[in-house]
């Protein structure tokens, strides 16, 4: 390996180490700012309420306290929001059993070997459990069973006849009728383990805009956001007696009997697609019954393309009313959708009727209106400006394709930066977006230019080769602070010596001064004018044995 390649490898290695360590420091500085921004919002405006909901008749009855829907940040505790979206939390949430990426849909930990999961190697759903087998004598034996379900049926062995799922997503597990959608096969399936059958729904067209991503309970990062429906109640009057109250209870209009929650109460299952729309799937026919809401309407409140990937968190509460008074069968009455923006600084609550029309909404005030918000915005901007300019530019181009919470896990790109936010702003054309982003990148670019200038000056001072200087300058300009630190760590550590010719510092490891080209003169060392060496004497003819000179036996004898 030649010296030049060796140095390049060393520079890159040092650069990687510096880049990672600096990026980590900047990441946590950014996170600190974001955490404080979130705290500011959640303390000042962390709860929204819609009342009345507009879903029911009788909500305007003066005798009735109308229904209300509330959405809260910090649902599971203060400052939970920013920590829930960190990498370790997201990983554990999704991978632990029953998590969305775990493929485990049901698990009975207190019983032996009771599981329901998807086995990607088989492409089948697997149900392991214990069945009770009644005996003729009235006793019950327990029998272990394993059943496999594929698109074509259910069996006790994973045979090819069952077919293979490719990429299933499922609703909450119901033993009687369990609905799944396969993104590869583009069909809904109803798996009935007890009956041993699998029903198939119609295949969605390949160019269909509906691409389901969640079925049943619709939520994302619900630990930092929740939405609740509180039903209406009879307004208590001082003159009420127990009889009048009982009458009022008997005459309870449906507004008083409505309930809300994440779990579907009817045969209509909510299905969220990639564009943010919520459809209703008839779990019996496995066909869509119509749109329940357009969650895209609430997601476009902030930047970026509509869809669940554009928000940091959302939660959906399905509202149902009994079909008849006292009945245990329910009718879908609408839904409430709460969303949290990707910066965790804005929340919106929308109420939709059964036909998917928005009937009421509420949103948090603009973040900058809150006292102290500007300081944190400025602090975050300063921290972002310390990032490498090239990464900021890359963040601009990747802004639209990044999921909302990746900004809380990304060390190098900045999906939630001001530059990326501007890149997603569809209210202006691409020229305006790019120009505004460039303005936002200006401090980072200016810092890059300044540091590159320092590198160029130092490289000239210590006589780096043109290639090395260019590498240093361009690397520092592109990578900013990490690039500069890498240069400082890898530049040759040489104490310069004053050149006698030009008076500037010259490198002692070079034959000539890199400023004036003069060869070496070492002023502080004056070597002797004589030499006694074997191969040719310095400046004189070849030495011959010198003539004999009388030797003094005693110093005093000579005089």
């Amino acid at each position, binding site marked *: 390996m030649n010296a030049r390649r060796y140095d390049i490898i060393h520079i890159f290695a040092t650069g990687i180490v510096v880049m990672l360590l600096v990026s980590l420091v900047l990441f946590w500085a950014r996170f600190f700012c974001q955490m404080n921004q979130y705290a500011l919002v959640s303390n000042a405006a962390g709860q929204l309420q819609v009342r009345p909901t507009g879903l029911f008749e009788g909500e305007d009855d003066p005798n009735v306290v109308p229904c209300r829907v509330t959405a809260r940040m910090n649902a599971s505790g203060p400052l939970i929001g920013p920590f829930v979206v960190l990498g370790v939390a997201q990983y554990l949430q999704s991978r632990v059993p029953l998590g969305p990426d775990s493929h485990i849909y049901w698990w009975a930990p207190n019983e032996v070997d009771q599981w329901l999961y998807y086995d990607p190697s088989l492409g089948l759903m697997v149900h392991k459990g214990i069945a009770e087998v009644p005996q003729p004598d009235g006793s019950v034996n327990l029998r272990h069973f394993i059943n496999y379900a594929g698109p074509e049926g259910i069996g006790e062995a994973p045979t090819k006849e069952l077919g293979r799922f490719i990429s299933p997503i499922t609703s909450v597990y119901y033993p009687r009728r369990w609905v799944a959608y396969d993104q590869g096969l583009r069909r809904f399936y109803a798996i009935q383990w007890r009956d041993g059958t699998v029903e198939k729904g119609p295949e969605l067209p390949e160019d269909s805009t509906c691409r389901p991503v969640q079925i049943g309970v619709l939520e994302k990062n619900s630990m930092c956001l929740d939405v609740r429906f509180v039903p209406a109640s009879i307004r208590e009057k001082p003159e009420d007696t127990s009889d009048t109250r009982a009458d009022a209870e008997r005459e309870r209009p449906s507004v008083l009997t409505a309930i809300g929650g994440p779990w579907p109460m009817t045969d209509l299952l909510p299905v969220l697609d990639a564009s943010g729309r919520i459809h209703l799937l008839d779990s019996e026919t496995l066909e869509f019954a119509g749109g329940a809401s357009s969650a895209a309407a609430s997601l476009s409140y902030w930047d970026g393309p509509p869809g669940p990937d554009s928000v940091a968190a959302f939660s959906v509460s399905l509202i149902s009313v009994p079909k008849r008074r006292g009945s245990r069968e329910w009718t879908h009455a609408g839904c409430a959708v709460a969303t949290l923006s990707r910066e965790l600084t804005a929340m919106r609550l929308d109420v939709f009727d059964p036909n998917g029309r928005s009937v009421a909404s509420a949103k948090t005030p603009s973040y900058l209106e809150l006292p102290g918000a500007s300081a944190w915005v400025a602090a975050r901007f300063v921290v972002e400006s310390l990032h490498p300019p090239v990464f900021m530019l890359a963040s601009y181009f990747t802004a639209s394709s990044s999921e909302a919470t990746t900004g809380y896990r990304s060390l190098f790109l900045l999906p939630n930066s001001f530059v990326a936010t501007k890149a997603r702003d569809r209210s202006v054309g691409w020229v305006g977006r790019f120009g505004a982003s460039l303005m936002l990148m200006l401090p980072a670019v200016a810092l890059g230019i300044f540091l590159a200038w320092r590198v160029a000056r130092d490289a000239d001072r210590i006589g780096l080769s043109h290639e090395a200087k260019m590498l240093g300058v361009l690397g520092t300009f592109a990578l900013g602070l990490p690039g500069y630190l890498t240069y400082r760590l890898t530049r040759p550590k040489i*104490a*310069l*010596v004053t050149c006698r010719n030009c008076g500037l510092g010259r490198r*002692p*490891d*070079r*034959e000539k001064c890199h400023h004036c080209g003069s*060869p*070496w*003169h*070492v002023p*502080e*060392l*004056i*070597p*002797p*004018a*004589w*030499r*006694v*060496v*074997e191969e040719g*004497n310095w*400046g*004189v*003819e070849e*030495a*011959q*044995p*010198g*003539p004999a*000179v*009388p*030797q*003094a036996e005693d*110093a005093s*004898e*000579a*005089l």
Partner: protein
Amino acid sequence: MLDNVIEVDGLVKYFDGRCILGGIDLKVPRGCIYGLLGRNGSGKTTMIRILLGLEPPTRGRTLVLGQDSMKLSAKTHGRIGYVAEGHHLIQGYKVQRLINLCKGLSLQWNDDFFGHLMETFRLPMDRRVKELSAGMRAQLNLALAMAIDPDLLILDDPTLGLDTVARRQFLELAIDVIQRQGRTILFSSHILSDVERIADRIGVLVAGKLAVDCALEDLKNRVRKLRVIFPERAPQDLYITEIINQRAEGREMVLTVANWNQQKKAILDTFGPESCTETPMTLEDIFIECTRPASAVVPQESEV
């Protein structure tokens, strides 16, 4: 078979902008005992450390046993025995552990010879190195360096800290090594009587240059100290080149000249001295003359 075990070509070394070695050219042939001399701070240890790859040169090239000093292979390292100035041994180790370590890392280990050395030096095996006296550390260092039967032995002031008896023992050991065919020794020492006793060639570092690099006998022939008496006052300008030292007092002038030859004698004769006698010099005398700081030197005008 390499002719030159050590080759130094244009070696320059700077420390923090201060020049220590200003261009050294040196060849040490196989089988030679080379005595490297110089005053304190002249760069002897620096040059040795550069030869062993412990220090990178600022400029120039150094080859040891045919390999670049900074890229010596493990095998080449194993053929070099080194006794460092200050005896850099791992202070916290016990003597036995250090011996086991060196034995384990060596390519060849002469157990008999090492045993003989340890018997001679009578070093305690269970004591830590830092608890040994300076002389004992020197002996241990020496024994470890010699036990590997090195092709090249580099000794940097090896008798520092040794008493007279131990020093004599070392010299005898060194002679023993010399007598083995093909062994080369490079050593520096301030005890010039020892150097004079065993060295073939001498090198003297003066002001960053190797001012002397020749056989010992050659050096004695070529450097002459003369006491010259003139009829009248000693002349101010004596047009003789390569004067190492010059001291005049009245009619008497004491002159130390390098490369004394017929030409120089003829020039001296033109000044009509009354008498000219030579003072015999030992190596120590020559060394003192060569390295005297107030030497009357002619400043160089050309670049070095």
